[in-house]
């Protein structure tokens, strides 16, 4: 049996049709696509399968040396002394770097610059970097690293949100909203109490989503190369070369113009390479110090310590429903275990609340959240960033409501879909929404209407939906500049060089970039040369995160290519003596639409234009539309467009053991417009694979030894063998449906597909287990013992459920920020912005400005200027 089945369906007939089926009209806009929507081979595919792609760890340079980092072996302690004397005398050892050599802090968000490249005086988790050593060979560096002696004064550890709430001192960081709580958020949209009064039924649920990590096959690696003119080049497996560039400049106290970052192709990222990392900065420092290229390739254990993965989230949800299944109000509370540093955590915190409103109509909404610091590797963004946890909660909650109200779970969703063009209660502007078509596709494909609730004991179907951003509306640091820039250089050979700061992390961004340019200029992918992810050579793109690349880079590329097309068309039209609008670009030719034989090759057209205009180049850029939200916190959630997904999962459960298998997955994803169906399918299947791992087994969990005997708090299994993630063997057959509901903001209508399809997988598995055996597991991952425990409870006549104890940690949120909804006549601002005492976050533009005013980044800019003089 084939494990793969793909279908495509449009919501509305697209204005352009695929070439074979289309009837060409006489205007350029009516012409069929050359490339868009066809399954072309990815531009980096050949190099990847033949091993020609050079990842960071493949790079070598003359005189290159190797670096290792001695990491903390205690979870929370003051550093008393570092003794490198024994290591210094060992063979091949060249030098050390310690924290005091790099006192400037850094971090991805301007409000959480809380990391040092090497710990200065304190370590905060087992794995925190303390001192680096370079040697001629990696083995020598390894041996020397082990010989470094570090003395610690151990501090009390915090292992969970509950402990962080209960133990405000000692603080893991000396900043944050209070004690060991990094962030506290409370926001209310509309008359919540009124909403609950309107309800016929009020449902309440408590769920837990365990943390998990990205598990990219490529372990992070960096090579830093000092250049002869006092500059430094850092080649690194990073998703965000631009932010790394800024961090290097700040910590190394070098002007940005003396630092060059080259993002090497990533062997998987999934959000795990989106932060600037300590090892990247330390490698650069070591290279500058030794005057030699320095490589560090992390071990798998160290990748587990880099983490920045899924936050463990405890959720409490209370929702009012009418008898017809519509929601009247919802109060969501989330508690995030952030680990030891800020990372993207403030944004993650807001994201656990932001996207609850973009799928089903939710007229009134309150969201409270805390993020705790704990002595564990820092959490951050993993595929779906902050939204899979509440999405799990919401979709399971809805499944339960459907049962209580006697409505089919598919119908309760279909009947309450958000309308296209809606501004939600929390002021998110939804564009196109193909979720209805997605639900219909998976309902039909899975035989839902005939099979749901009717399968034999042990077999079950579960349905869930999701939505995700196509890029965050705001950049990570406040500015008015484009989030994406693309520059084209047209050569008389007919080759087009495309320069863009985007980063290929396996998702196919290079292919999308090339395809957009090739489409508009009517040339082949082979005519395109890409230069990407290089801060010296390419215009800034903010990076491969928040599913922003297809939409933002795509739009920037489209603008640049259209400008080039218009330039060439003008000169060719003059030469052919026809109106420029009659000029068309296709099949590597530029020609008269009325008389296709009247024209020339693309290369000849470039010659015509270059002869007239001189060297040819154009630029394009993209800035997302402004969001209607004006309250503090409204900066997280807005996006130019939202993608939608529906998933049905079929499971087979053995009630005697609780062991279950997922036997089939149907997934329909509204991608707006498919640029390349092969890549879209790859992302859908990859998301399902990762989602099933999260649903069934993946967990980044920790062990604490008996406190009397040891202060240890360690990752339970930092290894690929014991951190359980599905293998090929565990992957069920998947049926994918590519739904195309073009969004006006997307290039050609395209939306994201890299993250969205993951979201519904986890709740769909939980809902399917309920259909199979009538037991609820309100927790992710769902281990067999949990299913068995829920069935034990059922057999004893108790509630057939396994999950966290109902409730939420006892936290005083004070007065929430109150915002009138659009339906209530709100203008997007909070009524009580000042009284609410909402603390600083990365959320809004105002907050970002504030953060910058007193923030360290500005200082570094000043430093840059000084250094540059």
């Amino acid at each position: 049996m084939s494990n793969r089945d793909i279908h495509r369906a449009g919501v509305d007939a697209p204005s352009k049709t695929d070439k074979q089926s289309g009837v060409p009209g006489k205007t350029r806009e009516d012409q069929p696509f050359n490339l868009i929507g066809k399954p072309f081979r990815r531009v980096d595919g050949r190099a990847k399968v033949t091993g020609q792609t050079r990842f960071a760890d493949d790079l070598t340079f003359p005189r290159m040396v190797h670096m290792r980092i001695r990491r903390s072996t205690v979870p929370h302690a003051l550093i008393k002394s570092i003794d490198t004397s024994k290591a210094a005398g060992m063979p091949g050892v060249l030098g050390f770097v310690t924290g005091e050599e790099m006192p400037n802090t850094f971090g991805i968000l301007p409000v959480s610059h809380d990391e040092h490249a090497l710990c200065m005086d304190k370590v905060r988790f087992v794995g925190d970097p303390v001192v680096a050593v370079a040697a001629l060979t990696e083995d020598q560096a390894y041996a020397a690293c082990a010989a470094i002696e570090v003395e610690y004064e151990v501090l009390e550890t915090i292992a969970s949100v509950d402990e962080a709430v209960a133990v405000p001192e000692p603080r893991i960081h000396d900043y944050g909203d209070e004690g060991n709580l990094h962030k506290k958020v409370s926001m209310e949209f509309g008359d919540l109490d009124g909403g609950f009064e309107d309800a016929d039924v009020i449902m309440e649920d408590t769920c837990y989503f365990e943390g998990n990590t990205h598990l990219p096959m490529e372990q992070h690696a960096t090579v830093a190369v000092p250049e002869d003119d006092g500059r430094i080049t850092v080649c690194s497996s990073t998703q965000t070369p631009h932010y790394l560039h800024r961090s290097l400049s700040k910590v190394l106290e070098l002007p940005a113009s003396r630092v060059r970052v080259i993002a090497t192709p990533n062997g998987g990222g999934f959000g795990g390479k989106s932060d600037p990392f300590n090892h990247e900065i330390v490698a650069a420092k070591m290279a500058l110090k030794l005057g030699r290229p320095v490589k560090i390739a992390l071990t798998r254990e160290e990748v587990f310590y880099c983490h920045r993965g899924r936050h463990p989230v405890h959720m409490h949800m209370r929702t009012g429903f009418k008898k017809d299944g519509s929601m009247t109000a919802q109060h969501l509370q989330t508690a995030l275990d952030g680990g030891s540093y800020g990372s993207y955590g403030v944004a993650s915190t807001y994201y656990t609340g932001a996207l609850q409103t973009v799928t089903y109509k939710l007229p009134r909404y309150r969201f409270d959240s805390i993020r705790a610091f704990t002595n564990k590797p820092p959490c951050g963004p993993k595929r779906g960033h902050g939204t899979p946890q509440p999405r799990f909660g919401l979709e399971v909650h809805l499944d339960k409501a459907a049962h209580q109200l006697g409505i089919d779970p598919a119908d309760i969703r279909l009947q309450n879909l958000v309308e296209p063009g809606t501004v939600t209660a929390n002021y998110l502007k939804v564009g196109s929404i193909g979720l209805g078509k997605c639900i219909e596709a998976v309902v039909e494909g899975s035989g839902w209407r005939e099979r749901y609730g009717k399968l034999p004991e042990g077999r079950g179907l579960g349905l869930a939906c999701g939505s995700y951003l196509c890029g965050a509306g705001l950049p990570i640091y406040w500015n008015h500049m484009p989030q994406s820039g693309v520059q084209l250089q047209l050569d008389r050979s007919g080759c087009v060089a495309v320069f863009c700061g985007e980063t290929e992390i396996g998702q196919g961004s290079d292919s999308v970039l090339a395809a957009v340019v090739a489409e508009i200029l009517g040339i082949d992918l082979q005519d395109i040369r890409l230069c990407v992810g290089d801060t010296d050579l390419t215009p800034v793109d903010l990076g491969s995160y928040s599913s922003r690349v297809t939409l933002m880079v795509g739009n920037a590329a489209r603008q640049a290519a259209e400008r080039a097309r218009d330039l060439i068309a003008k000169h060719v039209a003059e030469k052919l003596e026809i109106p420029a609008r009659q000029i068309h670009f296709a099949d590597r030719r530029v020609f008269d639409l009325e008389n296709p034989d009247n024209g020339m090759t693309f290369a000849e057209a470039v010659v015509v234009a270059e002869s007239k205009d001189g060297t040819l180049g154009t630029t394009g850029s993209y800035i997302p539309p402004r969001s209607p939200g004006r309250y503090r916190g409204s900066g997280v959630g807005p996006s130019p467009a939202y993608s939608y997904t529906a998933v049905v999962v079929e499971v087979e459960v053995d009630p005697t053991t609780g062991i279950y298998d997922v036997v089939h997955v149907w997934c329909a994803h509204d991608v707006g417009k498919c640029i390349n169906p092969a890549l879209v399918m790859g992302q859908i299947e990859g998301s399902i694979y990762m989602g099933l791992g999260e649903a069934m087994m993946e967990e980044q969990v920790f062990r604490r030894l008996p406190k009397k005997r040891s202060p240890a708090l360690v990752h339970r299994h930092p290894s690929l063998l014991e951190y359980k993630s599905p293998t090929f063997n565990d992957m069920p057959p998947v049926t994918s449906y590519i739904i195309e509901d073009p969004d006006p903001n997307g290039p050609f209508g395209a939306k994201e597909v890299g993250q969205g399809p993951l979201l519904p997988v986890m709740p769909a598995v939980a809902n399917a287990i309920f259909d199979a055996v009538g037991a609820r597991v309100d927790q992710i991952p769902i281990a067999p013992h949990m299913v068995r425990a829920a069935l034990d409870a059922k057999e004893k006549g108790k509630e057939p459920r396994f999950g966290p104890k109902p409730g939420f940690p006892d936290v005083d949120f004070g007065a929430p920020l109150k915002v009138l909804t659009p339906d209530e006549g709100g203008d997007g601002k909070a009524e009580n912005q000042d009284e609410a005492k909402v603390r600083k976050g990365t959320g809004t533009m105002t907050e970002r400005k504030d953060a910058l005013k007193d923030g360290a980044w500005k200082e570094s800019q000043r430093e840059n200027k000084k250094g540059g003089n």
Partner: protein
Amino acid sequence: MLRLPPFQLHNPTNLDDAAKMLADHGGKARLLAGGTDLLPNMKRRHQSAAALIGLRRVEGLRGIRDSGSGETAIGAMTTLTDIVRSELIHAKYPMLWRAVASISSPVLQSTGTIGGNLCLDTRCTYYNQNEEWRESISFCMKEEGQTCWVAPSSPRCWAISASDSAPVLSAIEAKVKLVSAGDGERIIAVRDLFNDDGIDYLKKRPDEVLTEVILPDPSAFKASHWKLRRRGSIDYSVLTVGAAAWFDGDKVQKLNIHLGAVNSYPAVPEKTCEFLIGKILDEETIAEAAGMSRQGSTPMDNTDFLARWRGQMVERYVSAALREIAGLDPGVKKPRHAM
């Protein structure tokens, strides 16, 4: 990358040389019989050796031989893939075939050997970690440390027996041949190869080479093998049941059950075995017998899955094995590996 520490590698071509080299190193050498476990362990520095004595080139250690008397001999250096591809093993010892086919992954099976699998080091999530990690817990009793963190008050090490072939070979009363330079050879039952101790888990002396596994005539007994783990491949077992029964008519004459991965050796649920002697293997009897099987197993929190649930699964999996021997539906979902 984790790197191997430096070591001497010897590749003797005959058994006498191998045994002599082993004796000459006086316990400071280890045998390399595939290395799919030993080499990663050495990379993580929780096993070490000044010298490795590779057995791959030693003549006469690889191959499956029908001895003619009903017995079958498997050379210790026979790869797991050789066994999986052996029609003889598949036909005559399907329970052993199943056990071997479930080990790790096809790639590692092509390197791993039956002798290596039998002598596999015990495992524990406090022990199978890299050096820095183990330093964070001040090491453990099994390597460098003082305490068994699985049971900190316990005087012993609770690392678990991880060999997939040991329970079923013990159950069918297979034997192994041990050869040493000093004493020549001795043959002992597989079940006598193991100690109930996570550290000193083998009764094989450090100077002995395990050369051969001898399987008994399969016509005398019916056997079964069940294995529990998270994924359908690669994972070590968290519970293995090897069972074999000898019948007198339709009554059980003798019954062996050995449980892997729930103790430091292939433990025996004695009550279950004794209870079944003289009985007919019907549904009720099996259910009653399986209910007694928890005794003898001590699943602890040192491998995958919740320990308490693994304890519950002992009963279910013993039942599955007995039901299979009795020709009944096993009553639990089949694992994802080949059966």
